[in-house]
């Protein structure tokens, strides 16, 4: 472990003034609105991303909402949240008193809804940035915004027009070409991308002969998806010019370092928060220790882009 004296600089810059003291962020949907999980050492965190927030309150899906799978979990929470007004009125004022930036994860069914939520949060003290969750399934076309570069650019562009806040677009991995979507949202004004949201998966209760999750399918997160998320980040870091925030299956300092070496500017911890609340601190300290050990003083020295290796099977 690095002693205070030799501790390297872990600050990172996600663009448009969003400077974080640590590259360790807690991911949307795994830390509520920042009021639960007192076990997590906040000194280790660079930012909190809130639960996905919509224009109106949502009750979420009927149970069963989660299921465990090998080294992973499926969830279909259904964006249960109190709606943007509650977030702006009740939560944001408390966030404004914290020394830790809170980024609001924004979800919606239509471009108009994304825009309305973003507009409502613009200029609200305590809101440090937006993360656009473009993996919602219920848009008119039946497709997710996130799987189509054109739709993804459209929603990004519309939100960009109504907010001065730093804007991170969270990509879905359920696509043939994630780089194309990332390029489109970069061009449309995103300050950063986060990759990735969950992979669509399923589990069946063979005894009861029905899917375990009430909605049939759910999003897969956790250690199981780490190699897939890492590959997505590796590709993105090589192809886009804005920061890439790596997320997917990070459980240990070594996992976080894999993403940072692959070119991520920062990382988000999701499922691990449920399992080992101490992970954030361990990962923060592990990154610092690694940098000391490798004689690196700045986070920007971590990526190994220089190594030329192929990226397809």
């Amino acid at each position, binding site marked *: 472990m690095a002693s205070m004296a030799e501790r390297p600089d872990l600050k990172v810059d996600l663009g448009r003034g969003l400077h974080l003291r640590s590259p360790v962020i807690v991911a949307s*949907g795994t830390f509520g609105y920042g009021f*639960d999980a007192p076990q997590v050492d906040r000194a280790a965190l660079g930012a909190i991303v809130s639960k996905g927030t919509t224009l109106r309150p949502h009750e979420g899906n009927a*149970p069963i909402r*989660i299921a465990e799978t090998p080294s992973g979990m499926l969830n279909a*929470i259904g964006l249960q949240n109190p709606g943007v007004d509650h977030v702006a009125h009740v939560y944001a004022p408390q966030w404004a008193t914290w020394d830790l930036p809170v980024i609001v994860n924004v979800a919606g069914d239509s471009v108009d809804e994304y825009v309305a939520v973003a507009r409502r949060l613009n200029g609200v003290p305590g809101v440090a940035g937006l993360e656009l969750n473009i993996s919602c399934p219920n848009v008119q076309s039946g497709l997710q915004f996130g799987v189509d570069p054109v739709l993804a650019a459209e929603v990004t562009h519309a939100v960009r027009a109504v907010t001065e806040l730093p804007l991170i677009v969270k990509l879905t991995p359920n696509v043939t070409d994630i780089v194309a979507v990332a390029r489109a949202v970069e061009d449309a004004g995103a300050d950063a991308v986060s990759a990735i949201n969950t992979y669509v998966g399923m589990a069946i209760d063979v005894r009861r002969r029905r899917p375990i999750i009430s909605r049939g399918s759910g999003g897969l997160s956790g250690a199981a998806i780490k190699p897939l998320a890492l590959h997505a980040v590796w590709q993105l870091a090589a192809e886009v010019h804005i920061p890439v925030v790596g997320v997917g299956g990070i459980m240990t300092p070594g996992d976080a370092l894999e993403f940072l070496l692959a070119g991520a500017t920062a990382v988000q911890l999701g499922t691990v928060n*449920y399992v080992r609340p101490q992970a954030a601190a361990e990962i923060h300290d592990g990154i610092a220790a690694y940098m000391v050990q490798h004689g690196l003083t700045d986070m920007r020295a971590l990526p190994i882009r220089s190594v030329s290796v192929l990226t397809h099977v």
Partner: protein
Amino acid sequence: MSIAVAPAVVLERSVPMAGAVELVLSHPPSAVAVGPGQFFQLAVSAPHTILRRPYSAAWSDPAGGRIGFIFNVVGTGSAWLAARDEGDELDLLGPLGRGFDLEGQRPAICVAGGLGVAVFPGVVQALIARGRNVIVLQGARTAAQLLPASRFPGADVHVATDDGSAGHRGSVVDLFSNLGEGQSGGIDILTCGPTPMLTALIDVAHRQAIPLSDIQVALETPMGCGIGTCLGCAAPRAAGGYFLTCQDGPCVRADRIEWELMTDGFHG
């Protein structure tokens, strides 16, 4: 609320009834902090698992810094837990959630089906300590699967078995039904068990005009986090929408639950 994430040491492993394991852990802060009906999230290092596993504290001994868990093997996580032995470390997160409300002086009936009995030793002890009259109704498949009555000192224990090998032949809800008739003058009912048993109990309560608010249920839903951040443990609320079993429960008054929508997810 003080929630510890800390390693506990296994002091003792035993088999309290057929098919179950009891682990006694040394963990003074938890032994002091836990209330009857609260639970812990236990970390398991089993192949291919990722989540912690929720378990009610069966009892606690604050003076001795000890806490007990009683469980059966249903899958990988519980199999791993069942293989723990004296001296092994266990990482527990808790105490979590809301336990039973033990206020009041009315007689209390604890209705336990199957492994649902695991939560009751500490509950009964606390009720007796408050000077309340306690009846324990316990149901299991066979006599061997009953937690011995000696685990409920001071309580009046009645049992039911599916095969009639001990007590009433049939369900614990029958027992309750018979007993309930005579007791309509205000009782507190605390229950834990498989969903079909719970819904049967609710039916009896309806028939006997027992207010659902007199019944407290220790619910078991799948859990991601246990601390209110994953929203995975939703259970249907009578008032519409959902509550979180890990925060608003696991012990919930039966009138708060929308029984029509209860999924038979667990203890099935």
